[in-house]
């Protein structure tokens, strides 16, 4: 087995173990009901996490996703719920806005060498601020299209529901895997994350790729906002505060290195499902107070990065030689 698969394998094993523990306590974890709900409840931030995976693979970071999700929700609610826009038109408009927003951040990062952390932090302020400007109260959406979407559901024999949101999540996952591993863009992302200078010398269009990466992340965050809007049927400017941290944690737990260049989209998916499983378990249990989820995520994060550290230490000659070569940086 190749060593770069080990973190991914570990993520998967931890997921299985946690799921088995959950199952031993609540047998409903074996039903499609719980599985369907897991996919549905974690769809929106899972979609954002897939976008974040590309950003982190390239060695960057995007702090704006939570705010972008909130802005999208408020925009949709305002336009569809109050101004009576057609949902499809609204979605097209907001996806364009979101993509341009991300592309602008990518441009600032690449062209003016301002750290991604700071640029996307401004993006966080801007998107959240625009959401507040649009509306500070929660707006309901009553539209036949929304009813239609929520009736689009496949019902399993045990009354488990495979919803539209879950389908979008899986679709994004497949598209993400394809984009990361089977396209030139994906290779460029890995190349930039591995070594930006070397990538440039090899002819990778670093500027264009960087802009595309942040555009993609914001596009998916916007899409996540639409999915959330469809399932909540309302828009609220205070949702998804601090969500970017959960998203980053999921990407890291999924085995993607924050230094860039190493990781898999599927790992992020497994990590999202892992955190979702813990959440569901704590909700079903009820005796555990809600703050434990934060502590558990912290502990998991610690366990994973510790593990990755141990693994990368024992990766043999190749890794050592690589390190030696990278030393005089």
């Amino acid at each position, binding site marked *: 087995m190749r060593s770069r698969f080990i973190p991914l394998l570990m993520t998967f094993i931890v997921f299985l173990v946690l799921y088995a523990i959950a199952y031993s306590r609540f047998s409903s974890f074996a039903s499609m009901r719980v599985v369907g709900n897991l996919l549905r409840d974690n769809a929106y931030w899972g979609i954002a996490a897939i976008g974040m995976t590309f950003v982190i693979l390239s060695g960057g970071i995007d702090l704006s996703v939570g705010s972008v999700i909130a802005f999208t929700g408020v925009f949709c609610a305002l336009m569809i719920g109050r101004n009576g826009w057609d949902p499809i038109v609204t979605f097209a408009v907001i996806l364009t806005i979101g993509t341009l927003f991300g592309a602008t951040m990518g441009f600032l990062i690449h062209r003016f060498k301002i750290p991604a952390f700071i640029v996307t*932090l401004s993006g966080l302020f801007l998107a959240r601020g625009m959401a507040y400007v649009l509306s500070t109260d929660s707006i309901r959406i009553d539209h036949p299209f929304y009813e239609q979407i929520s009736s689009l559901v496949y019902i399993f024999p045990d009354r488990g529901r495979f919803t539209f949101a879950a389908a979008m999540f899986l679709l994004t996952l497949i598209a993400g895997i394809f984009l990361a591993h089977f396209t030139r863009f994906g290779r460029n992302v890995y190349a930039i994350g591995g070594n930006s200078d070397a990538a440039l010398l090899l002819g990778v269009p670093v500027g264009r790729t960087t802009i595309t990466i942040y555009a993609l992340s914001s596009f998916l965050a916007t899409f996540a906002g639409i999915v959330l809007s469809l399932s909540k049927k309302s828009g609220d400017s205070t949702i998804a505060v601090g969500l970017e941290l959960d998203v980053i944690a999921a990407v890291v737990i999924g085995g993607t290195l924050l*230094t860039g260049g190493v990781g898999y989209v599927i790992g992020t998916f497994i990590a999202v499902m892992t955190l979702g499983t813990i959440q569901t378990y704590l909700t079903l249990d009820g005796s555990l107070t809600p703050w*434990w989820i934060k*502590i558990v*995520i912290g502990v998991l994060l610690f366990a994973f*990065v*510790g593990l990755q550290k141990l693994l990368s230490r024992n990766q043999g000659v190749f890794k050592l030689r690589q390190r030696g070569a990278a030393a005089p940086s």
Partner: protein
Amino acid sequence: MNLEGKEVYSENKRPGNFRMIGPIRGDSRALWTVVALLLILFVDRLISPNFFEIRMVNDRLIGSLINILDNSAPYALLAIGMTLVIATKGIDLSVGAVMAISAAVAVVLIRNYESGATEFFYQPGFVILITIGVGAICGLWNGILVAFMDLQPIIATLILMVAGRGVAQLITGGQSPTFTNDSLAFLGRGVVAGVPFPIFIAIAVLIVVTLLVRRTALGLLIEAVGANDRASHYAGIQSRMIKLFVYVLSGMCAAVAGMIVAGEVKSADPHTAGLFAELDAILAVVIGGTALTGGRFYLALSVVGVLIIQSLLVGLYVSTLHPTTNLVVKAFVVLAVLLLQSPEFRRFITQIFRRTA
């Protein structure tokens, strides 16, 4: 980092000129930062004609400038700790959570004192010391992860950032306990010679830390570790201990900031105490010209960065703009300040002017 950025990159990492204190002998970064602050204050003055007015009411100075300083105090403390962390090429995302933890610890302890517990460690003075100790322990945890386990700082401190608020809630039992003790409240709302006490705390910490790092070799060592960890190790610097030190200091600063905030509102809210404080602190440090890539650092300029952010917020507060626009304006101003500082952007602008001329 692409090749064009190489030049700037190495310049940021040069650990020279260790005697420089603040904007006195700085490069153009210092100038731009101070210009930005003056510009914002000037705009504030245009918006509100009596912005610079300071009055004495009930032995207490009142005025927008005093508000700016008062609001800046906790962030200045965070920024001071954060500057040293960033100088070692690190980052401390956990300071907001540490503020919440220390506020929770201080308030829970002081409530015991108020309900008549007589043990010595419930005395307000000891509560403050214990809380600073808790902050130091949080910093120690971060420092061990970064320095001895070689975890990336952003991830190492993310752990405490995520878990910390849970810990704070655990300490308060999910509540937001309130207190009435005047000694603890003094940290946040006390007034000495008409000036709010937090301002004194921030200035004192700034002076002590500046003396500590600039009058000893510590500042040079920190810059060396941030500029090139490996080289500084070969040069005989105990880079691990240096890193441990900066995280512990950052944790202690966060603990004091947490107590100031708890003192202001006489309660500890684990959900909102220090929420997003880490982001504002990092922003202030970057505005102050300390690069996230480590190396040179500017303590006083980081505090100027804090003042920039707070002048902006107080200015927005007195303006007639609807408060919902605050974040939008903040985003644009921050971006403008950062663009102003970016050598690439300045070159870009001069090129445009040259072309049109």
